[in-house]
């Protein structure tokens, strides 16, 4: 299709240049799409034409914009804007031909001030230039080719010649030619030996083979040229996007390659790009080498360095210290809780000890419901409007309270664990004094985090990665359940305020714990024995 159009256009042009008969007729372009947009600060018109052209004129925020370029300013509500809005008002109900006629008939409103009149003329000219088209019908004995060009008729030929890259090149190739022409489009030409072509020979999209003489110039566009032995060109040879495949003849006025400059420029651009890419690659390589070197000296995980053998030691000791600091912080928090809310801590601890299963279930359920409760509470408070101030407090405080409950629960379970360890006869647990909650809390924390710390120590040694992972997993499980049980106990006791889940008072157990003896006392039997003794007496 393109080839056909190109051939038709070029033929028309060639014939036009040969001063064939031609007619010029002005007409309006076909408007295929219209958009009128009117708002408080905008009144815009956008047109699309059947030949893919477009026009956009907008009066927007005090500026007149034509095809994206600001061409002037107006005062909102002034005469020009009113006239423009009136024009758009008429444009709304019209399409295609009627619309084009109405718009092209628009003229500068009378009574406008100088600046506004100039601006109106600019708009009028834009409308007329965009809406007008010109049709040239070029005729010769053999063919008739209509060519339609939009815009100013004065620039018609230049528009035509510059419509595409190919046509622009053709225009350059044909520039300044006079006299007779012989144009061949899309066909090969052979000038046999012994024959002479009078005037200029133009070959477009074809190959020229010259064996005889050309009494003028030879112009080849988008093809090849062969000058055979004995051939002669009395004028100039011009090549436009064409190749000279053989040059054995004589060219009197020399050879011009119209794309040579372009090719040189292209070559320069290519070499420039190559240099830039090379420079960029070199810079990137330097950066990578520098980064690798820096990593080497900064004791990175990868690569060899002098510090490599000690990495695992540092890492293991570091993690161990972190865990010890955690124990210290949690222990201090626990001590504070015991000091300021000892009774509540006792209630929570008793509940966790007496009902660990129930506490764990409640803890897990509570954990799952935390986020929904938080969100629903926030939404409910917000929707109620009155509760918006409360929501502002709810949003940050609820997560804080949940975290505090989790920490408190964990510490309480640690205390229970410490008491259990104090009763046990495991090595290194003798220092835990059951009567002192501070000791039991710290002891329990050590107990709960023992697996983590053992994993830290083992990570120092090589080849025990699996065991380290296993211990870390065990520590995670213990921590998870400790938190769930503790959190559940906090929830069950309403932070230690309700003790219905704690144990009821058992005087025997209390006596047993107080005396720390392992003796069962049957009260009834003892009373009977006392009675018998008294009878005997």
């Amino acid at each position, binding site marked *: 299709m393109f080839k056909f159009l190109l051939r038709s256009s070029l033929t028309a042009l060639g014939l036009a240049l040969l001063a064939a008969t031609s007619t010029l007729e002005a007409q309006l372009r076909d408007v295929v799409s*219209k958009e009128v947009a009117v708002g408080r600060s905008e009144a815009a018109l956008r047109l699309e034409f059947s030949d893919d052209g477009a026009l956009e004129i907008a009066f927007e925020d005090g500026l007149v914009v034509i095809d994206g370029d600001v061409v002037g300013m107006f005062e909102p509500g002034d005469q020009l804007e009113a006239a423009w*809005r009136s024009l*758009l008002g008429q444009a709304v109900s019209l399409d295609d031909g009627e619309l084009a006629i109405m718009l092209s008939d628009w003229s500068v409103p009378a009574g406008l001030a100088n600046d506004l009149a100039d601006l109106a003329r600019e708009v009028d000219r834009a409308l007329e230039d965009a809406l007008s088209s010109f049709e040239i019908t070029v005729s010769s004995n053999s063919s008739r080719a209509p060519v339609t060009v939009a815009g100013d008729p004065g620039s018609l030929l230049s528009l035509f010649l510059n419509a595409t890259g190919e046509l622009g090149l053709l225009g350059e190739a044909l520039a300044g030619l006079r006299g007779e022409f012989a144009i061949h489009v899309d066909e090969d030409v052979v000038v046999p030996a012994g024959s002479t072509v009078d005037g200029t020979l133009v070959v477009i999209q074809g190959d020229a083979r010259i064996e005889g003489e050309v009494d003028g110039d030879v112009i080849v566009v988008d093809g090849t040229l062969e000058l055979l032995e004995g051939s002669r060109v009395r004028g100039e040879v011009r090549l436009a996007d064409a190749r000279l495949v053989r040059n054995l003849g004589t060219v009197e006025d020399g050879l011009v390659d119209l794309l040579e400059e372009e090719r040189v420029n292209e070559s320069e651009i290519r070499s420039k790009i190559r240099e830039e890419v090379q420079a960029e690659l070199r810079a990137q390589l330097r950066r990578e080498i520098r980064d690798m070197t820096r990593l080497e000296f900064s004791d990175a995980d990868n690569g060899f360095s002098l510090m490599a053998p000690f990495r695992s030691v540092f890492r293991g000791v570091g993690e161990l210290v972190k865990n010890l600091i955690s124990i210290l912080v949690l222990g201090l928090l626990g001590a504070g809780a015991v000091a300021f809310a000892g009774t509540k801590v006792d209630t929570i601890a008793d509940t966790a000890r007496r009902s660990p299963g129930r506490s764990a279930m409640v803890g897990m359920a509570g954990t799952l419901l935390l986020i929904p409760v938080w969100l629903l509470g926030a939404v409910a408070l917000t929707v109620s409007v009155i509760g918006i101030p409360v929501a502002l407090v709810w949003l940050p405080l609820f997560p804080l309270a949940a975290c505090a409950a989790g920490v408190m629960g964990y510490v309480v379970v640690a205390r229970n664990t410490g008491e259990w360890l104090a009763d046990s006869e495991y090595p290194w647990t003798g220092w835990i004094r059951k009567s002192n909650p501070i000791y039991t809390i710290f002891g329990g924390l050590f107990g709960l985090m023992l697996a983590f710390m053992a994993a830290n120590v083992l990570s120092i040694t090589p080849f025990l990665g699996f065991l380290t992972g296993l211990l870390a997993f065990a520590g995670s499980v213990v921590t998870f359940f400790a938190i769930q049980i503790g959190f559940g106990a906090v929830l069950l006791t309403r932070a230690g305020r309700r003790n219905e889940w704690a144990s009821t008072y058992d005087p025997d157990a209390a006596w047993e714990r107080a005396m720390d003896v392992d003796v069962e006392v049957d009260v009834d039997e003892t009373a009977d024995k006392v009675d018998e003794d008294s009878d005997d007496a």
Partner: protein
Amino acid sequence: MRKALYIAAVTVAVAPALLAGQSWRTVTMSHQIEDNSEIRVFVEYGAGHLKIGAADGGVLYRMNLRYDEDIFEPVSDFSGDRLHLGVESIGRGFNIGRNKQSGELDLEFARGIPMDMDLEFGAVRADIDFGGLALTDLDLSTGASQSTIDISEPNSVGMSTARFEIGAAEFEARHLGNLNAERIEVDAGVGQVTLWLNGRWQRDASVSIDMGLGALELRVPEGLGFRLRKEGFLVSLDSEGLVKRGDWYYSLDYEDADRKVTVDLDAAFGSVKVVWVR
């Protein structure tokens, strides 16, 4: 239609005065018919008053849109055989309290150009007339709307299935026979649905209705072969003029009718009423 356009023209001309202190914007777009064979049309409209009809002249589509530019932006994209029209929310501004119902979208489409129509709208009052359009496919989805669909002229091209998906709505469809559809599917949530089975049926057709909660009124022209099957939990059926055979309710002249329409109804709660019209 001319009158409406002139009214629009006057509105545009006096827009600065009308729009003082508001953010309303009026956009009019139109596109001429070129070498269009079949186009796929997608219309989306959130809130306001929607009107759809057939265009006269050589216009492929014409859109008159009035919208609040603080909340919406117009959509008009015609590339290849796809045409996308409507408004989209731009998420700017605080929408609560805005009078969304004041927006208007008036659409016209060319007669005779085959169109695959897909309409989606939300809280919209819709007056749609597909009469004169050449519909090859129809998908209509509404939210909480009050919609009246009419097919005032027969569809010149047939379609296999027309689908209506209705949310919480008052929905009325007239001249469904003119749709020239082999199958019509109605999926209604909550609301009042009135289906007119009049119009020119060019073939036997089936209508599938799936309703949640609401009232369904089937307006059946006399002479049309009509049968209905009902499934549902608590659905009352006013079956005057119908004879029950097995699971089906038949019109008296079902066997002799030139065109037969089968309605398969599945509803949860509600009432179904069959009204005979001349």
